[in-house]
């Protein structure tokens, strides 16, 4: 058995210290060790975007990220972009615009969209399409997702 490393990083604004084998990926650490199951496992190959989290504010595929690479960094999951009471503007817009159907890809989209709007508060539809092109959705045909992100941008503005 490989010796576990001791990782220290900020998770959703709180410092954490956790033992972790060196080959463990961030997705497993989050879902299994830290029981943050909002981040979804869709492919384990970086192809679907369901496992997207923010590392230092940037969308990152947690299934392809070795957990030890987040040592000393700032990780935000879907749980971290959710206000303690109620929904964020992006989340509210996803509900009201029908941008979530089966919901399995949704946390990844919410995290990606949240990061986009922090960086580009008024994105064009093209910019939104580019930003979400690493996230697969098989239910919606993307149109309502793009509508929701546009609506959230208007609300935040």
């Amino acid at each position: 058995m490989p010796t576990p490393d001791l990782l220290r990083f900020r998770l959703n604004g709180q410092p954490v210290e956790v033992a972790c084998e060196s080959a463990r990926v961030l997705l497993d650490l989050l879902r299994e060790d830290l029981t943050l199951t909002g981040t979804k496992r869709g492919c384990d190959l970086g192809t679907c975007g369901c496992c997207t989290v923010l590392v230092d504010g940037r969308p990152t595929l947690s299934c392809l990220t070795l957990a030890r690479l987040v040592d000393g960094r700032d990780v935000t999951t879907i749980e971290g972009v959710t206000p303690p009471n109620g929904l964020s503007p992006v989340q509210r817009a996803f509900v009201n615009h029908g941008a979530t159907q089966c919901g399995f890809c949704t946390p990844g989209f919410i995290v990606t969209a949240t990061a986009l709007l922090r960086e580009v508060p008024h994105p064009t539809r093209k910019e939104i399409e580019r930003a979400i092109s690493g996230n697969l959705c098989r239910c919606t045909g993307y149109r309502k997702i793009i509508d929701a992100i546009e609506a959230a941008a208007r609300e935040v503005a």
Partner: protein
Amino acid sequence: MTSAPPSSYRLLGGRIPYVEGPLKVTGRAEYTDDIQRPGMLVGRLLRSPWPHARLRSIDTSAARALPGVFAVLTGEKYPTPFGVLPITRDETAIAVDKARYIGDIIAAVAASDERTAERAIALLRVDAEILPDYADPRMGVAPVAEPIHQRGLLGSNIQKEVVQHFGNVDAAFAHAAHSARVRGNFAGVTHAFTEPLVTIAEATPDGRLTVWSATQVPHYLHRALSEVLGLPMHRIRVIKPEVGGGFGGKSDPLPHEIVCAALSLETGRPVKILLDREDVFYTNHGRHPTQNDVRIAVDASGQILGYDIDALLDGGAWSSFGTVTTYYNGVLAMGPYRVPNFRYRGRRVYTTKPPSGAMRAHGGTNLRYSVEVALDMLAEKTGIDPFDLRSRNALPPNSRTVNEFRITSTSFLKCLAAARDKSGWDTKFRKLPYGHGVGLGCGFYISGSNSPIHFTPKMPQSTVHLKVDMDGGIAVHSMQADIGQGSNTLLAAIVAEVLGVDLDRVHVQRVDSDVSPIDLGSYSSRVTFMMGNAARAAAEELRGKLVAAAATLLDRSPDALEVGHERIQERGHPEVGVTFLEALHRAMETSGALTASGSYNSPSMGGQFKGARAGTAPAYSFAAYVAEVLVDDDTGEYRVPKVWAAFDCGRPLNRLAVEGQIEGSIHMGLGQVMGESMNYRGTRLINPSLLEYKIPMPQQMPEVEILLVGDDDPEGPFGAKEAGEGPLIATLPAVGNALYDALGVRFTDLPITPDKVLKGVDQRRAEGRPWKGR
């Protein structure tokens, strides 16, 4: 209550956000893989590396001896065959005697952790005799050296053959002014839902077994578990957590679900089996690779005289829904047109490849492509506009097809009119520059199969239970399976509509076979129609109790009362009334918590011939789509900037959900026509990942103008029909026919990839047929 339907309802017909939406957008919705049970073991599967092999022996001793391994299972322990259709049970949980495709399950282990489970799998030694493999269904229509299944017809690999003839097709073609023939070839496509297949099973010391699974049809899973494991159904509890998409791929009871339960029975511990994405591709049950040959005859005025159809379906290793698929690939040609003469031969052939099954718009998609392309050819031959040709042949409302389908509501003519008008068809068709085109494709689909798979016709297809206690919250139980299409929301909205209460009073309970009355689940686009009617009946029963109680409080006759918003009031004098809670508490004085039950069964229908029930449905949806394409002549790449989607789903009950179904269907249909394909080298699937099996990107998604033009269906709940599968079908031929308008090339080999576009254009030029001056 039998008066003319109102023009609008309080909730229904509006845009109702999903009731569970807040849980989904926060990551709090619970899917099967999110569930942890104490002491849970990890199940892993050994899959066959051979397409066809006799399993002589499997040495499990080293795996069993590995510390941390709790069970090793091979096929002989649970050999009872199962299958979604009771007439074609040919699957086993684990291969018995033979492996039938690369990916077939041949052993399973349960271990304390993933790494141990994988090590145990690697220690299994299989002695196998390689048998001939069959990659192509054409190889299997005659007797073969080693039939894949004993049940193959006369020593061949034919799983099902359907032959039907109505009227006189030869005479129709002899009298035809024109005929057209399309020989379509369709690659297999798969559902590609985002949530992988996953099951948890927990056998407990009270002799019961609880199974959580990502399934569309909890009831059929329940039955299959009982049959294979030899446990009575009442000792098995099936729970459906949130399901991350299905599209048909979670509608069969699947082998890993049964293996997971078997491993739990073996170990007495909870076991989870989560398939990785590659295994999801091997499990498949997607749309059949299909070769069809469609001939259509018309008279000089464009009136359809007859259809002559042949279909050869690649079934893969198991039967799955295949017998239904074989019928559907013929009989679903019956709408949206009047077809007086009809002949069909369909054959579904086993191959040693991942099983084909039901996928969104099951059986109606590939057939429809060829039919609609043939009609486009006939429009050209007769000089009749494609819209006019179709309106001339539209099935009238309240009619019967030649094979005795009962057609009640159809707004197909309205679909045609709306699509023609909004798309600007008359200014575009054959008038756009080279490389730019528009095409029309139409659709027709069942709104719930009249023929439930397991029940005698006398048993209801859907039941809904309601319970309301003094808190005034209404608990709704039903085994209908929300897989993202919004059926929980519709169920809640129907109950709230009938009772006049706010939506937040209504709590749709998780599907749990211990408490949910049976509904047959999410397939055949049946849920809105069947569950909707059952929900309405249940809510009306509850409303009757509340109104009766209110009548005693108000000293009025119940007939004089009506439901208002959160109250029951006198008709014509809304100021005279009691609140919902006052009526409820009065009613509870005699009975305690109120309960109500409603159910639905479709009326008896269909002819008396063999296979007559296949394709019968209590209603049908209709569609007319126009797609616009823009082709890059240099690369063969093309995009679809816009689709006008006119759809008849009767009255749309939740516009947000209906739009979502249509947009999602167009996305999936575009995937099949533009690029999705299960690619094989021989029998080996070579693109089992979402990187290599590409679904359309956001950038490829067209603008969609949705035109909901349906009139109320007389039997649908509040006038509604299906909108879950029918919206996919018209997408494919609309694009195919638009490419013809753009390039003058007929494409009959799907997906239509850029290389095929270039080849088609080259060939047209080589044949000296200029198009739009090019």
